[in-house]
């Protein structure tokens, strides 16, 4: 029996239900998404590469299992998009950089191994700012990703390809990475749900490193309910990532929370996040979300996090420092030669030329800045100072979490901006993450939730996301509130 509902509109939850009820097959679901990709990817540029044969084979295996009435998990057959800095064995992993243009992953990332165990389907690899450095996906060596709601605007970044794929129904859900805001900012700009988990909750093995003390893989989905399912599948200790923690999560609390308990959570509103520089539409939409949560029975409390304004400086010292170390390995030899070969007289010359030709402007800017803040004579004044202020910011969050359970803020002071509007001025681009960065410096989980569903947006209205920040390892709190909100 075929249903009339377009398969690409399904969520992870409704797909799983329909698959088990045999209303459609996993192969039909995957093919429906490739049809959408063929029709819409040329204008959106969400995917850098697709893997149709592998994906259809994965989907068929799920259909065989379902036909035999074998038990399959909630992600079986679900067609996912994977950010191109996450390794899937046998598929390209370019990190949207010329220097990795020819690289094919030789092993699976930890999160990909887990999703393969769940029999998820990988449609392809998605666009990003080169090595995840940026807030708009304009730093990709392979062209910007466009916002599906308005093609003249950015999708946000750096996980712009993954987010645009979900927003345009070119994938049912996706994986991104979030270092300073790279999942939440594009989610706010495109109207998806995106979560950056607690640092250490998800393996970073096989994720091309940008800033190792901040990078986390997280879910990008159409609903908060789906985000809980995808997060639950990828979380967990991985011996191949020494910073991944063996923290015990209560799976039932993550997937089916007791909403009566959720409603007792106290939500803090940090006044430093509601600044004058904010677009009035963002202020209005987030205020409406607060009212809606009040109507649902939540109590709010105004709080203060006075060190918030220093987070941007701390972040842009620590991240380039880690970038300059992490990108030192890219020499144009170890991960395949760049497509455009250079002539070099000796090895040192080859390094200079490969790196000079292979990295884009933002990668180079951060390598230079990182080399500077770590160099002799400047280390104490910049890098160590930033580490000390980072400790202050974390402590401030921990103190605030003694009085509230969760914090609510805007994700960004603005909505999706025009392509090119900030591309030439790095500082103005960095400011897009000013409200997303602080939680990350302390390692706290944070989620972007659309203030209203896409169906309720006016034709020319741009999405806005609000952010919920939770205590460490308490994804259940922010997911639970989000699920009540979207009900």
């Amino acid at each position, binding site marked *: 029996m075929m249903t009339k509902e377009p398969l690409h509109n399904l969520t992870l939850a409704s797909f799983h239900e329909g698959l088990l009820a045999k209303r459609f097959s996993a192969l039909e679901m995957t093919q429906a998404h490739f049809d959408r990709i063929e029709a819409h990817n040329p204008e959106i540029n969400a995917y850098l590469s697709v893997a149709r044969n592998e994906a259809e084979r994965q989907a068929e295996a799920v259909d065989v299992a379902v036909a035999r009435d074998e038990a399959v998990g909630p992600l079986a057959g679900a067609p996912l998009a994977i950010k191109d800095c996450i390794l899937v064995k046998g598929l390209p992993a370019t990190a949207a950089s010329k220097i990795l243009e020819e*690289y*094919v992953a*030789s*092993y699976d990332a930890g999160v990909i191994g887990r999703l393969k165990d769940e029999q998820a389907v990988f449609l392809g690899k998605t666009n990003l700012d080169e090595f995840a450095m940026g807030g708009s996906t304009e730093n990709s060596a392979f062209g910007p990703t466009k916002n599906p709601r308005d093609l003249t605007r950015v999708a946000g970044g750096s996980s712009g390809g993954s987010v645009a794929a979900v927003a345009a129904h070119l994938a049912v859900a996706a994986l991104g990475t979030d270092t300073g805001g790279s999942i939440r900012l594009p989610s706010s700009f495109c109207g998806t749900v995106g979560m950056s988990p607690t*640092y*250490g909750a998800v393996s970073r093995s096989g994720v091309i490193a940008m800033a190792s*003390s901040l990078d986390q893989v997280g879910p990008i989905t159409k609903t908060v309910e789906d985000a809980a399912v995808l997060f639950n599948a990828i979380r967990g200790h991985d011996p191949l990532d*020494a*910073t991944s*923690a063996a923290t015990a999560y209560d799976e039932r609390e993550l997937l089916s929370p007791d909403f009566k308990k959720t409603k007792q959570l106290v939500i803090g509103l940090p006044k430093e996040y509601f600044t004058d520089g904010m677009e009035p539409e963002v202020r209005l939409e987030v205020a409406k979300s607060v009212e809606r949560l009040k109507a649902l029975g939540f109590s709010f409390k105004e709080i203060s996090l006075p*060190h918030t*304004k*220093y987070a*941007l*400086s*701390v972040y*842009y*010292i620590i991240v380039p420092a880690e970038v*300059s170390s992490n990108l*030192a390995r890219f*020499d144009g*030899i*170890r*991960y*395949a030669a760049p497509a455009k070969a250079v002539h070099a007289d*000796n*090895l*040192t010359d*080859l*390094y*200079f*030329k490969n*790196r*000079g*030709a292979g*990295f884009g*402007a933002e990668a*180079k*800017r951060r*390598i*230079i*800045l990182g*080399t*500077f803040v770590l*160099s002799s004579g*400047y280390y104490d*004044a*910049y890098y*160590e*100072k*930033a*580490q*000390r*202020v*980072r*400790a*202050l910011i974390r402590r401030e969050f921990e103190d605030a979490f003694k009085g509230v359970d969760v914090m609510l803020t805007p994700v960004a002071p603005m909505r999706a901006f025009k392509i090119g509007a900030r591309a030439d001025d*790095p*500082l103005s681009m960095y400011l897009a993450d000013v409200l997303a960065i602080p939680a990350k410096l302390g*390692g706290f989980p944070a989620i972007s939730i659309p203030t209203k569903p896409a169906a309720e947006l006016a034709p020319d209205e741009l999405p806005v996301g609000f952010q919920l920040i939770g205590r460490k390892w308490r994804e259940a709190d922010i997911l639970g509130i989000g699920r009540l909100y979207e009900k």
Partner: protein
Amino acid sequence: MSSEINKQELERLAKLARLSLTPHEEEKFVKDLGAILDHFKELQSLDTAKVEPMSGGTDLSNVFRDDAERENTNRGAGTEAFPKKENGYLKIPPVFEQ
């Protein structure tokens, strides 16, 4: 604290980072990095004498694996991407002047 990255300093940093820059990039980066370092000055007003620097993102420490023999299951996977190989060796341009 000097927040000056002039052309000479930029060239020194680029050399340390094994990065060739075009004259246009050099000009742009001197300007960009000046503005970024100016922004960082705000941190100097904070008293952090009594704060321990936070390194890394976790409170984990001394994460070791057992010192036991392990079977390598992904042998050769790291070398298959090398551009030029011979008898399992990686071929690169000469390191020393001839």
